[in-house]
């Protein structure tokens, strides 16, 4: 309920006689516009030549598929990202890995960039940090098909952006026998310790609860 005390009466500002003729007010307005016309700096950015600085470093733009230190695709085709993706825009075909250190690798890895909502869930889901969103936002294509990025293209994006945005955890996917073995073992140790330290009940918590959090 609205009580009388809540009502604020706003009075129209009193105009002087000159103001009532409008002319002084028009002059005032013209002064403002002239000032903008001649003296104010332009705020627009000349886009393709000049790019605006992103206000956040974790801007979620086009995806990339990371390479491991041996320059192979880091993805192990676990389908976590495809499962997590709310837009169902990742399509993976897994195959037996030609390498010793892992079982599977993606034979085909397509992301429909037009369907993607750039939520970043795939990046969150990936156990080996193989898929990441970059800060690139200006991708163009002349057809819908062109905007379905395949494995080559996604790896290519990695090659182009690795200097701007290095891979988050480059060493964790150094699988046995490859990469920085020492660092890998350290990480492994840390991980195992973390699992041990956990309360017994917590480790049994289902994935759904984790997501809700």
């Amino acid at each position, binding site marked *: *309920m*609205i*009580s*009388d005390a809540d*009502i604020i*009466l706003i009075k*129209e500002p009193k*105009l002087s*006689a*000159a103001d*009532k*003729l*409008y002319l002084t007010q*028009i002059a005032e*307005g*013209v002064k*403002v*516009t*002239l000032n*903008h*016309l*001649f003296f*104010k*700096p*332009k*705020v*627009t950015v*000349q886009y393709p030549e000049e790019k605006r600085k992103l206000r956040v470093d974790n801007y979620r733009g086009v995806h990339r598929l990371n390479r491991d230190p041996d320059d192979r695709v880091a993805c192990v085709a676990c389908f976590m990202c495809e499962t997590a993706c709310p837009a169902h825009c990742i399509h993976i075909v897994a195959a037996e890995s030609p390498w010793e250190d892992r079982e599977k690798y993606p034979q085909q890895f397509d992301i429909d960039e037009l369907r993607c909502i750039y939520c970043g869930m795939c990046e969150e889901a990936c156990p080996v940090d193989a898929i990441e969103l970059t800060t690139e936002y200006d991708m163009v294509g002349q057809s819908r098909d062109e905007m379905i990025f395949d494995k080559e293209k996604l790896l290519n994006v990695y090659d182009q952006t690795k200097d701007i945005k290095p891979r988050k955890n480059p060493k964790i996917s150094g699988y046995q026998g490859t990469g920085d073995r020492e660092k890998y073992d350290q990480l492994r140790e840390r991980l195992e310790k973390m699992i041990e330290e956990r309360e017994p009940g917590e480790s049994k918590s289902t994935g759904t609860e984790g997501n809700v959090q």
Partner: protein
Amino acid sequence: MLSWLQNQVVFSAVLSLVLIAGMMTCVAYCIYFERKISAWIQDRQGPNRVGFLGLFGNFHFWGLGQPIADGAKFFLKEDIIPARVDKPLFILAPAISMIVALIGFVVIPWGGSYMLGDTIMNVQVANPDVGLLYILGVGSMGVYGVVLGGWASNNKYSMYGAVRATAQMLSYEIPMGVAILVVVLASGQLRLEEIVLGQVGGNGLWNIVLHPVSFLILLITLFAETNRAPFDLAEAEQELVGGFHTEYSSMKFAMFFLGEYVHMITGSAFICVLFLGGWELSFFGIGPAFPGTGIEDVGLISVIIKIGVLAVKVAFFIFLFMLVRWTLPRFRFDQLMRLAWKGLIPVSLGILVLTVMGVYMGWQRSVLFNLGSEIAIVAATLGVVILANKPVTGRQDNMPVVTQPLGG
């Protein structure tokens, strides 16, 4: 050699062709500059990409190719004629709008006289005795295209736009006519060329010095006549979609658009001729005529200078049109009506009465009398405004304080 040109009829025909071509180019670039100025006022860059086919690499000439691209785009767009429109009128309306705007400028004296061989030509397409009445008549015909377009569109928004335009024109024709009448009375002439000659340095002062208030009234009504902001209620895209041109597309829409800009140019030229000495450059008629702009100068160079002087004056007014458009918000309809009927018409009538008295006494060129009467009018208006003690916005100043408890 140029003897075939020495006939005023032929000369006028050639001149009108040149003028139409020049006018269309000017209009195209007016639109470009309007976009630029609006952008600058809003701290943007405006169109700056379209150069000339990329012939000059990455240099785009500040987007100067834009009008050409715009024109081509208008021609290539699909021209939709909705199913239930009144087809003949629907097609006719933009044409009328455009033609009426274009024929207005024939009586504008662009550059005095020109000595071609041994004949003196008027640099003016036509110089009828009733030049001023002609331009008034033609100018108010402009609304005809708007009304027809709105009516024929069979769309209620268009109809609203048309009705608004009609009411607005009816109201603003009156102060416009009266303000012009003041000049006519004071100079005793209806020929535009003669009105200019009356203001040439040495002959007399520019009319703006003698009748500043009439000038202001004419300027305001000109904004209304050309349907420009703050008087663009006929279009009012926030309320009426597009007003009278809601249903128009492609070149038909462009013709309304071009008509508006041509109207602006003609109107500005008209106000320059009436109040600012036309092609003459003697600084309010106080100093002597600028070399090359006197009556006796009839050479080619002087004609070019005269046209240039008029063009600069017109350009100033067009700039003013644009500046005001991007400064002032649109009037509400009742404010528009109040401004005309309670503001401009009484003031202009007051000036008319005083001028008539002046003419009767033979004081029509006296600075003292004219300025005195203008000041008297302004003072009287201010007095009335103060005495009335009502806001011109029309909102209730003294709304009773709510004492009843609300809700419950």
